[in-house]
């Protein structure tokens, strides 16, 4: 059985950054398993720009960002195996892989970094009534068809969901010669960035209809149109129905971390994120198994994925070096309260090794001129003023070690202010 110090599951931005960081921390015997034929993951089909402002201080396209990391992987001599599917990870960190060349093989790893990414919520999970014709795609599938396979899915398009991929695809479809009639969003606010609303919709005169959803799909063999209605409190308002003829419906209605391998391995999953429960080292409930990137929680910025993944890689290296599964200090839970949907990590050891702890989270509504507050035993231990926080933008605060070192019991994190 082949043995490795670290097996990284997934060669996308998270996996590559984790491997690079582990290598720089002195770990030598690393392997990256990637199911696709090349490194880069989903970035290979994200041909738009807007990546890398934090990491590389310049604006790159997805493939460029991926290539920078792939180059680092190669320069550092980190081995990777593409066309390789991980079939199973057991709690003793035996990883079952499969490829054309090697068949099905078990390998043994001293540590594992989970970096499998996420998938899109399909139509069936949205419960939209109607037919199931040809012409309905998730935005990411359409993105792949256009950008990798060179196939334009249709000519007359509507988009459900204002996630960034949906907005990006509205522009992409338009540039490729399709007409995008509108983007519909169930929520009263957009789930995408303003920048994308302006540059992907406004630039091309594509309307964004907030508090609208699709209630019926017409066309048995081929998509013929959709019925759209305004919604109030999540329910369609009778009398507001409008018919949009179209041959293509793109869905951009949320991403789900792909944790089937983690679950089968016995990793505890946080129902709020659908990702693993992790501590300050991004270690899961199984010692030596770490998680990062979109498989841990869905990010909106790849730069944050890289930063988080580097932490996971460093932690794996430290785990292999010391064999220590956790710090000596007491474990303190981070409890999301008012306005905070979840946090990553979920807990930390009072004597965590770094100078500061990054707490990443999402807010539950739009908060202007508010504050992020941490409390322990009723006492405020941290406060940060914020101008604006929106659910579609992940928050990342760095809290100094000496602040958290005071904590003797659970730390609550909350937003002080009124949601709009």
């Amino acid at each position: 059985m082949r043995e490795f110090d670290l097996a990284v599951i997934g060669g996308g931005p998270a996996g590559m950054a984790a491997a690079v960081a582990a290598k720089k921390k002195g770990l030598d015997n690393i392997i990256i398993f990637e199911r696709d034929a090349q490194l880069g993951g989903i970035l290979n089909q994200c041909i738009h720009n807007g990546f890398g402002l934090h990491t590389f201080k310049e604006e790159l396209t997805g493939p460029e960002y991926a290539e920078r990391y792939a180059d680092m992987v190669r320069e550092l001599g980190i081995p990777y195996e593409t066309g390789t599917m991980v079939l199973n990870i057991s709690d003793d960190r035996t990883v079952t892989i499969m490829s054309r060349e090697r068949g099905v093989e078990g390998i043994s790893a001293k540590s594992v970094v989970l970096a499998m990414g996420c998938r899109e919520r399909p139509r069936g999970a949205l419960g939209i009534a109607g037919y199931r014709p040809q012409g309905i795609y998730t935005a990411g599938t359409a993105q792949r068809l256009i950008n990798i396979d060179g196939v334009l899915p249709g000519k007359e398009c509507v988009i459900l969901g204002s996630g960034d991929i949906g907005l990006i695809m509205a522009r992409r479809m338009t540039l490729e010669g399709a007409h995008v009639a509108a983007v519909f969003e169930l929520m009263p606010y957009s789930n995408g960035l303003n920048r994308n609303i302006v540059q992907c919709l406004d630039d091309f005169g594509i309307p964004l209809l907030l508090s609208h959803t699709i209630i019926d799909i017409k066309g048995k063999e081929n998509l013929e149109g959709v019925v759209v209605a305004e919604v109030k409190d999540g329910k369609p308002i009778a009398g507001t129905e409008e018919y949009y003829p179209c041959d293509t419906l793109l869905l951009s209605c949320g991403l789900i971390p792909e944790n089937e391998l983690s679950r089968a391995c016995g990793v505890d999953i946080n129902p709020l994120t659908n990702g693993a429960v992790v501590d300050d080292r991004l270690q899961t409930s199984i010692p030596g198994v770490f998680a990062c990137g979109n498989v841990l929680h869905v990010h909106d910025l790849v730069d944050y994925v890289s930063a988080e993944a580097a932490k996971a890689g460093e932690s794996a290296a430290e785990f292999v070096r010391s064999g220590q599964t956790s710090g000596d200090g007491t474990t303190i839970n981070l409890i999301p309260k008012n306005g905070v949907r979840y946090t990553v990590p979920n807990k930390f050891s009072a004597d965590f090794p770094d100078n500061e702890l990054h707490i990443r989270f999402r807010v539950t509504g739009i908060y202007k001129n508010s504050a992020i507050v941490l409390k322990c035993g009723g006492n405020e231990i941290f406060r940060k003023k914020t101008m604006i926080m929106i659910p579609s933008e992940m928050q990342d605060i760095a809290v100094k070690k000496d602040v958290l070192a005071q904590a003797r019991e659970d730390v609550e994190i909350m937003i002080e202010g009124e949601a709009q």
Partner: protein
Amino acid sequence: MTKELICICCPMGCRMTIELDGEKVVSVTGNTCKRGSAYAVTELTAPVRMVTTTVRTADGVSIPVKTKEPVPKERIFDCVSEIKKAEVTLPVRVGDVIIENVASTGIPVVAAKTVPCR
């Protein structure tokens, strides 16, 4: 003349009102920080955008490309249609110039990915 604009510099999305005298910006209000006014001036005097798309080799390999600099906003479609016609042969290295001067904008189109021969 006045124009309304939503700032895209941060998620705040300030709604700005811009006072124009012909093509000259007289005043910007509604912005929270100075990035907003700077954005408003460029956006209203000479809006520019990066263009990203793909080119395909004769045997169907897709290569992502981008304009090296942002191009005038009104030239986006001209750029895309010219890029579509570009002929590329492998191998391609990231940064390779695919078109020297796209749609007479003076701006080159470069490859955004290294693609070796098959």
